């Protein structure tokens, strides 16, 4: 199986050459970045066709990340749901504990191919920051990670890991001090450093070619999972569920199933505290198409086009926008998007810990909570496959704080 999608007959052919998924996507960035985006696009196209690049990436994914990640039948959780079998695609078992590393290794290799000497990244939960710092340490590239000050606080263990691996972590104090502001700050750095620096975006967001490229690097999740289902159960799952922040684990999980029309795909956004404006981070559920961070996609904004405040207990989902391909999948009806609120996700974190011996990331807990609901309505011979996008060690301290317990770290 190749790491980058090359001749996958079941893959859809979007985006078009302008980076559009239907109406969505495109490039809405300052002129300063155009040349770097063009260069990235052509370098990526040539890397995709280069067997050496494929081999290097496959090898890294195997020996450094530990791929393939297994699928796992969560039997006690399935029992609790009282319906379909719930299976996890274990991205939490990857090196660094989440799916993010699939993308950062690919982009770090591209950085080297392009002859760029420095890497920057944004991070919310810190998983992408850690995965970028890891890839950079592996290749000996200097790395600067922008992280909202609020996220620095609530994802402390990841901040320390990044620093241990030699990355510089820059807390961002503008705006809401979360993921959206970290993206702004990383883009501004890139505006000035674009000639020697690559910006490793952590999700399927941003200007073309990022949404396509990050999806391709993450598609290893769905490709493996699809084959594993066929090998282990001799069938495809009935439903595939993933959480959606920017949408990278979901895109990587869904994309290889897109043409399997019998497989239901469900994306779970952060429902926050309520459906009221400012109380959630669910652009596909409560937003409208608009432009944010370089692409046209569903976004939470006010009637003047100003990005709206958002809330989620989970730093990785606390983002007002979403990747353009998800907007396309939503409007075309191929993927169903729903939301899960803070309380339900926190409760599921506990439930999975106790019934399965797995601490899922708070982001992932959103997906599992919805998967439980969906499975509960189905028969025991049916299969719900959840992308277990990451592990929850990073969330332990914040959960303790929310519960009024002492910080265990």
């Amino acid at each position, binding site marked *: 199986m190749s790491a980058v999608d090359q001749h996958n007959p079941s893959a859809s052919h979007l985006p078009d050459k302008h980076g559009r998924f239907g109406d969505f996507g495109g490039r809405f*960035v*300052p*002129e300063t970045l155009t040349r770097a985006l063009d260069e990235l696009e052509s370098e990526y196209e040539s890397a995709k066709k280069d067997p050496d690049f494929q081999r290097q990436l496959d090898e890294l994914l195997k020996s450094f990340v530990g791929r393939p990640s297994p699928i796992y039948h969560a039997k006690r959780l399935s029992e609790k749901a009282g319906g379909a079998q719930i299976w996890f695609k274990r991205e939490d078992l990857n090196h660094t504990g989440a799916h993010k590393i699939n993308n950062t290794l690919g982009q770090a290799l591209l950085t080297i191919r392009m002859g760029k000497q420095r890497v920057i990244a944004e991070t919310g939960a810190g998983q992408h920051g850690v995965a970028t710092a890891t890839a950079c340490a592996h290749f000996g590239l200097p790395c600067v990670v922008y992280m909202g000050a609020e996220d620095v606080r609530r994802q402390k263990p990841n901040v320390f890991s990044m620093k241990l691996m030699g990355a510089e972590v820059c807390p961002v104090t503008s705006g809401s001090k979360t993921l959206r502001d970290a993206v702004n700050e990383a883009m*501004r750095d890139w505006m000035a450093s*674009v000639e020697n620096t690559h910006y490793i975006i952590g999700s399927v967001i941003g200007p073309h070619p990022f949404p396509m490229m990050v999806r391709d690097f993450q598609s290893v999740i769905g490709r493996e999972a699809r084959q594993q289902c066929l090998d282990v159960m001799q069938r495809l799952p009935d439903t595939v569920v993933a959480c959606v922040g920017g949408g990278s684990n979901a895109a990587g999980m869904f994309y290889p199933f897109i043409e399997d029309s019998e497989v239901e795909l469900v994306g779970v956004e952060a429902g926050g505290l309520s459906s009221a404006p400012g109380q959630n981070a669910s652009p596909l559920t409560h937003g409208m198409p608009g*432009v944010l961070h370089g692409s046209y996609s569903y976004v939470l904004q006010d009637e003047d086009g100003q990005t709206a405040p958002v809330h989620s207990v989970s730093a990785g989902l606390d983002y007002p926008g979403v990747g353009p391909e998800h907007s396309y999948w939503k409007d075309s009806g191929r993927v169903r998007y729903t939301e899960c609120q803070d309380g339900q996700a926190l409760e599921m974190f506990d439930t999975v810990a106790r019934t399965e011996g797995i601490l899922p990331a708070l982001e992932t807990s959103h997906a599992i909570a919805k998967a439980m609901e969906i499975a509960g309505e189905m028969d025991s011979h049916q299969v719900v496959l959840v992308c277990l996008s990451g592990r929850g060690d990073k969330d332990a301290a914040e959960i303790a704080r929310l519960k009024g317990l002492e910080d265990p770290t």
Partner: protein
Amino acid sequence: MQSFVGQVEGHYRDGVRLSSASFSQTPSFSLIILTHPQSKLPMSAIDDRFSELRAQNRKAFIPFVTAGDPNLEVTARALKLLSASGCAIGEVGIPYSDPIADGPVIQASYTRALDAGTKLHDIFAMVAKTIPELSMPLVSMVSYSIIQRIGAEAYLQQAKAAGFSGAIVPDLLVEEAGSLRSLCRQHDFSLIHLVTPTTPRERMLRIAESSSGFIYFVSVTGITGERNELPSDLLDQVAWLRERTELPICIGFGISTPEHVRRLAPVADGLIVGSAIVRRLSENQDADRALANVEALVREMIDAMMAAC
């Protein structure tokens, strides 16, 4: 005042000059317009202004202010003062929540304006009320996120009705500009594109083709903000483009001292100064003092510009 740059009688409404000094004595410039490669170019007050300036061998000093920082009354006062001080064109920043191309000073100013509750329709209302008292046309600096949300046609109609003559859309590339460009042409509204030091030369020409009013030449690879040094090859870059387009070229980003103005004025048709003005407007709680500081800076820069050309 004799050191006025581009000061003319008259005022602007609907982006069209109602009364002004005659520019009939500038046949050579009319010829330039007629021979421009574009068949149907919009003619806005920006074009008029540059024909006057060129006829008088003058350069445009273009200040940037954020609408609504600290409030729209002060913005209106600032615009009147800038106009009276001899600024040729005014650039009004429509505050946006996520400005990628802006440095800390303008970002913070946008945040203050939005936190103060500045809405687009209030900005348009302020401009409509103020423009009769201005002798300089106005362009809006506006994120495409805002235009997209309002709708390109609605934005154009409202902006034009308020008195704007054009728009600079810093996050709209030529490739994505097609429909806005044709709307602007229909409405005689200038669409001012940016070129940057990272823009390949053949692309600069495409951008020039797509622009109207003037071309915004970004001086640095980076974001807005005051700087000590400007790139050494900037003059050559501008000179290269100067040879290949008849559109006015205005340089902006980082210009913060009279020395910068002296160096750049000879090669450009205009200079744009943002952060240095926005910072002075915000540094002082007292609006009168803040405005006096802005006026002092602008007069110093305009003098430097006059002396250099």
